[in-house]
């Protein structure tokens, strides 16, 4: 498929040059999607399962989350029609997901992962939580993660 008609929208981009591997993005993500009032309440004594994950190896690090592809293989592979593309944004209807993991098989970035209940979760740019703006971007201390249109 040629990826024409690229949806013009702000996306989250990562610049590994400035990533410090501090993992704050993961925590801000987990918090933002926890629905909790306070970060402490949301994350204390919990193993977090964020929608953005930092890859780290000998000094190099960078965060990875959904690229919101223009030609989303995950959407085209979802057997339940749980994933869909709304104005460029790739969203998931968790109630439809049956946990078949076809999206894990399809996503070339490895950006989808199951939540604690085995239902798939993914970055929705904080549009579906109370946060509004991508929390990982706001939480990044070094502008290694930016939210912009390219």
């Amino acid at each position: 498929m040629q990826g024409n008609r690229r949806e013009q929208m702000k996306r989250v981009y990562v610049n590994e040059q400035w990533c410090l591997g501090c993992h704050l993005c993961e925590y801000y993500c987990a918090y933002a999607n926890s629905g909790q009032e306070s970060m402490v309440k949301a994350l204390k004594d919990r193993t977090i399962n964020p929608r953005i994950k930092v890859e780290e190896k000998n000094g190099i690090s960078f965060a990875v989350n959904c690229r919101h592809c223009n030609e989303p293989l995950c959407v085209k592979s979802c057997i339940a029609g749980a994933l869909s593309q709304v104005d460029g944004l790739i969203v998931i209807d968790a109630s439809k997901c049956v946990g078949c993991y076809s999206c894990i098989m399809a996503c070339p970035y490895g950006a989808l992962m199951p939540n604690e209940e085995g239902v798939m979760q993914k970055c929705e740019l904080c549009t579906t939580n109370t946060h509004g703006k991508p929390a990982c971007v706001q939480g990044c201390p070094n502008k290694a993660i930016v939210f912009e249109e390219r």
Partner: protein
Amino acid sequence: MGINYLYPDFEVHRDREKCITCRVCERQCANEVHSYDAESNRMVSDDTKCVNCHRCVSLCPTHALKIVKTNHGFKDNANWKGDVIQDIYRQADSGGVLLASMGTPKDYPVYWDKMLINASQVTNPSIDPLREPMETKTFLGQKSSKIRRDENGKLITKTDPQLALNIPIMFSAMSYGSISYNAHKSLALAAQKLGIFYNTGEGGLHEDFYQYGKNTIVQVASGRFGVHPEYLNAGAAIEIKMGQGAKPGIGGHLPGSKIGEDISKTRMIPEHADAISPAPHHDIYSIEDLRQLVYTLKEATAYTKPIIVKVAAVHNISAIASGIARSGADIIAIDGFRGGTGAAPARTRDNVGIPIELALASVDTRLRQEGIRNNVSLVVGGSIRSSADVIKAIALGADAIYIATSALLALGCHLCRTCQSGKCNWGIATQRPELVKRLNPEVGSERLVNLITAWNHEIKEMMGGMGINSIEALRGNRLMLRGIGLNETELQILGIAHAGQ
């Protein structure tokens, strides 16, 4: 190690209720204060390693951390204070000179805080900078003492080389080596955006930064590191560093550990070899020698660059300044004893030199007495902390001011004063790649631009309040200052009246 005489200065207080063990403190502390104890699933800390730089505090997402000065102490003694005693322990332990960094923390009078600024009431109007032009543009350099005309009687407008500043504030010398690549880049970018200048310091100019030459002052110091014709011609001006406020009469020493490939290339010295700047320039033992270097540099740059001579504020500074003014220098930079440093012997830093306020006042007065104030521009530094300090400095007679510590603070420095360790958690005073990375020049330069822009707004506000709408009308306008709680001598040196007079 037998007895440890030193009790940790700081205690890391972690609010267990708030800590979510995200381990960012652990990951971000180059001093390895924090660590994770899997057994108890808790963060633990080693206070002895903490330098109180606040990196962990600033990044902790739940504000679970604070660093507290220990209240453990010696029996009260007005004479033998705790830090005095600890210094003795340290030296008894190491047998070495005590090293320190940044400006002196000692409680010397800060004259900026003992001067008050005037404002217009009734008899003449204050000016609203939002409605009227408010000018801060400043030229640095020699001014012609007599105008000349061509055969048709037209003014000849050619002048000695000048530096044009949009705002009379510059970033003073900090070498690449004492601070990081990204810190330098932040300064360069900000200087460019602001239409001002930053200063290479004595570490030479990294090849990547030649592109910022229009906004660069290249320094020639006693070590002559990285000095070559392209370098001299790369900048907008050349600064001869005779002295530094934090360590008058002392040279510099950048430990070999900080001399990586890049720095060795930039400084033109072998990798991992200590970079030692001699105390004096060994080709300058007298004022006439200085004159020779000034003209050597002018020759080397075809008289296209103003020459700055930077000296530390010492007792007979006004005589020295008047000598420099007659040496062909275009600009004199004076660095007060509260000025910062990447590393200096603590005793020197804390006891040698004089405050910049007094040095500036007496130099300005002296140059006017000699009628040569217009032959040279005056730039002062050494702990300028706010726009109010800037206004006061200019009213005392400065053409422009140098800031360094304020700039570093803008970049994230928390004045922990352990630059010499090379483990700056803020990516400023370090050469470790993983730490340098922490200062994204895009962020850094933006913060610097914000700071200077904010100061400029405040300067304009206060100028407007004084009914002055152009910075040159403030320069040396000491009537706009009044002393508060100063004695006769201080007032007389500062050339100002006391509040109420």
